[in-house]
């Protein structure tokens, strides 16, 4: 098999970048396995409890970039108690002890302590990139350590993180010698920031391409920062509050015109909406726009803005845009690939099936959708499926639980059925509205590429879940809440779960006995029962229904850091 020396094969493997492909390559033969593992630089661990850090380091000693995911997806919606797990410290500790030259760490839904950040900052000389998404557990002290000690830091990216303790001095901890920043995102931090230090940092970062500011950065500072960094490609504006006649605003308008490289815009956490005209010149080149945290931009001002965004590929927006606004998007944004419409919590001008139909008709390149809406009809979904068979991600959330088609009063089985039948490349699907087992029959039949499915308040019987488990061969993640699926569904094909990353079931019909049976049959699964109510003792009654069950395949057995309320069967 080996016609070439190892170095040549290794060089060829350099061009094999996706983890999936590298995994495949490593299975060809022992020799390729060895060459591949020694040369792999980037490792993705979808479930931090599926494997131990020591084994990862042992297999991939050349590791430079590590991506870890911790808590299951439903943790985002407060369905998981606070201390469930997902601590990253053991990973950083193991990496620090080893000889791994870590350069990049990307974490999602993990608990990160200040100590951990401190250790991270001191252990890896070439550490370059820290990306934290939906993480928790640290304060700005940890950020100060990163700033102070990572001499070659290129990227510090904090997304959707609640950091309570917040003092703005961490930004002053970047030494004067730090000139390597390419990306700085602290938009989610709630507190004040040392503006002078920030200005000086940006001034000495000629490679800065992405800058996302928080609410505490006022307009005149923004203007100064943009003067220093006209090369920015991605800008997040924290505060856009000003007096339109003020010199600061006039200066900003002029400066923005010079920022010809900006392709991505976000933020506007605080905004005076009446004069967004300063932004219009930037809009013409935008490929990505995120106004989902900007309830202050609405109505005609929003529509005016959108009309300039002809090149938009990604749009995140609040439902206050309304069907009318989505009509404008459909008319204007012909390059649109990804749309997310989030709920604003306000009653007037939310979106319905009309907006979605308009978008599907007007935006032929759309393939990724997250849509929170007041209602949906089968007819609309069928139309969407006809208009657009490109969807890879289709997540629909009808705000009113179990709401039927308001025109026909029927469940939405046919509508979703049309979507899965038409969209042959669908990888991710979230369902809502009134749904019977029928929709799952369709999903099992047609959703051949489906990897992740989210189910809530749906189905009638075990058959529903079985259709999915039997039919979706590529299923990796299944998460179900408040649906009448029980032990029969759970236990019919236990081998299936080793082909998947994880299964979440909460408020369903599975019992303790059922889960125990499963755990006994499948030693390479961790079957966790999560019991937060004090009333629910771990009684030995097999017939007791389980509140929350999270199971996942693992090579390292039950985790040792599970808190009291988690019972691994």
């Amino acid at each position, binding site marked *: 098999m080996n016609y070439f020396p190892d170095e040549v094969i290794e060089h060829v493997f350099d061009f094999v970048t996706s983890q999936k492909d590298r995994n495949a390559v490593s299975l060809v033969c022992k020799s390729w396995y060895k060459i591949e593992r020694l040369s792999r630089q980037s490792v993705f661990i979808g479930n931090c409890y599926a494997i131990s850090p020591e084994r990862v380091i042992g297999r991939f000693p050349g590791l430079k970039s590590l991506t870890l995911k911790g808590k299951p997806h439903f943790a985002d919606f407060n369905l998981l108690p606070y201390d469930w797990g997902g601590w990253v410290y053991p990973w950083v500790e193991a990496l620090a002890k080893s000889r791994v030259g870590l350069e990049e760490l990307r974490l999602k839904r993990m608990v990160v302590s200040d100590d951990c950040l401190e250790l991270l900052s001191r252990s890896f000389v070439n550490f370059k990139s820290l990306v934290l998404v939906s993480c928790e557990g640290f304060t700005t002290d940890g950020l100060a350590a990163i700033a102070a000690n990572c001499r070659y830091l290129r990227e510090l990216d904090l997304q959707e993180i609640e950091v309570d303790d917040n003092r703005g001095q961490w930004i002053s901890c970047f030494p004067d010698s730090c000139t390597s920043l390419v990306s700085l995102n602290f938009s989610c931090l709630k507190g004040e920031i040392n503006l002078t230090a920030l200005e000086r940092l940006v001034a000495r970062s000629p490679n800065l391409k992405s800058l996302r500011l928080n609410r505490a950065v006022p307009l005149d500072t923004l203007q100064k920062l943009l003067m220093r960094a006209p090369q920015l490609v991605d800008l997040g504006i924290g505060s856009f509050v000003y007096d339109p006649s003020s010199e600061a605003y006039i200066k900003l308008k002029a400066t923005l015109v010079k920022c010809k490289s900006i392709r991505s815009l976000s933020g506007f956490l605080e905004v005076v909406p009446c004069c967004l005209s300063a932004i219009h010149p930037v809009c013409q080149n935008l490929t990505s726009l995120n106004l989902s*945290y900007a309830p202050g931009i609405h109505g005609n001002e929003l529509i005016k803005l959108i009309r300039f965004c002809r090149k938009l590929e990604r749009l995140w927006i609040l439902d206050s845009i309304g069907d009318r606004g989505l009509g404008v998007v459909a008319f204007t944004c012909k390059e649109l690939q990804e749309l997310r419409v989030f709920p604003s919590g306000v*009653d*007037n001008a939310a979106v319905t099936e009309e907006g979605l139909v308009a978008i599907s008709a007007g935006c032929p390149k759309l393939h990724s959708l997250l849509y*929170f809406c007041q209602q949906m009809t089968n007819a609309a979904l069928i139309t969407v499926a006809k208009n657009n068979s490109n969807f890879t991600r289709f997540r629909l959330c009808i705000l009113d639980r179990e709401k039927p088609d308001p025109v026909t009063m029927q469940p939405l089985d046919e509508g979703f059925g049309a979507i899965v039948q038409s969209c042959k490349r669908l990888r991710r699907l979230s369902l809502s509205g009134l749904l019977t087992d029928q929709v799952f029959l369709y999903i099992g039949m047609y959703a051949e590429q489906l990897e992740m499915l989210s189910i809530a308040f749906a189905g009638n019987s075990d058959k529903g879940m079985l259709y999915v488990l039997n039919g979706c061969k590529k299923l990796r993640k299944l998460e179900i809440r408040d649906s009448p699926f029980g032990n029969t569904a759970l236990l019919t094909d236990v081998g299936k779960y080793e082909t998947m990353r994880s299964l979440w079931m909460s408020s369903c019909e599975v019992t303790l006995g059922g889960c125990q049976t499963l755990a006994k049959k499948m030693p390479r699964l961790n079957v966790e029962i999560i019991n937060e109510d004090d009333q629910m003792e771990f009684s030995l009654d097999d017939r007791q229904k389980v509140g929350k069950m999270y199971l996942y395949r693992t090579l390292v057995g039950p985790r040792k850091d599970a808190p009291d309320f988690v019972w691994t069967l």
Partner: protein
Amino acid sequence: MSQDTTVDSPESSDGASLMSFDTELTLGLPGESRSPARAPAFAQGHKKNCTKRGFMETVIDLNLGTSHISMPRGQNSESRVSGTGKYPAAKAQVTGWPPVRSFRKKTLEGSSKLVKVAVDGAPYLRKVDLQIYSSYQDLFRALEEMFTCFTTRDYNMEERKLTGALNGREYVPTYEDKDDDWMLLGDVPWKMFVESCKRIRLMKSSEAVGLGKYKFS
């Protein structure tokens, strides 16, 4: 704002009027009739005739909500009011629904000031976010769109009254402030109003006699 609104008259507010919508979808502003003859109306300057959520239509929605079949669920089945009451109880709040990240929820909560708006004679409440408006006129425009009984030119700044187009009665916009007093909208500067307003009530003029600092029980 044109007077020829196409809101369904109260008499026809039953399930049948919604059932008669064409299933063929056309593009248009919410609330317009869905006849194919009507051209899409993106052009600016086209005024909305009515909103999808005009209150009579919402009353229809609420009525229909009672009639769908109750599906059996697991141990968290919610009680569903069916039949008797004209306006069914809202579904119980459930953890994690709608599925929005708590970071997003908290951030938006912080930047919005949601207050309930009640209209005398209407059976339900609406919510508005006061933070997104910059003046009383702005707010009234939004209220007008929501309730479709008023038009901006019906707002008489001098006497602070709104004239309902539907039934011609006058409404007085009032709000409850932090001290639990009922005040007239417009009494205080806008920003102060936003800060102190707890909820809004469009009161029938006949009831608003002598309103100033007036405690309601």
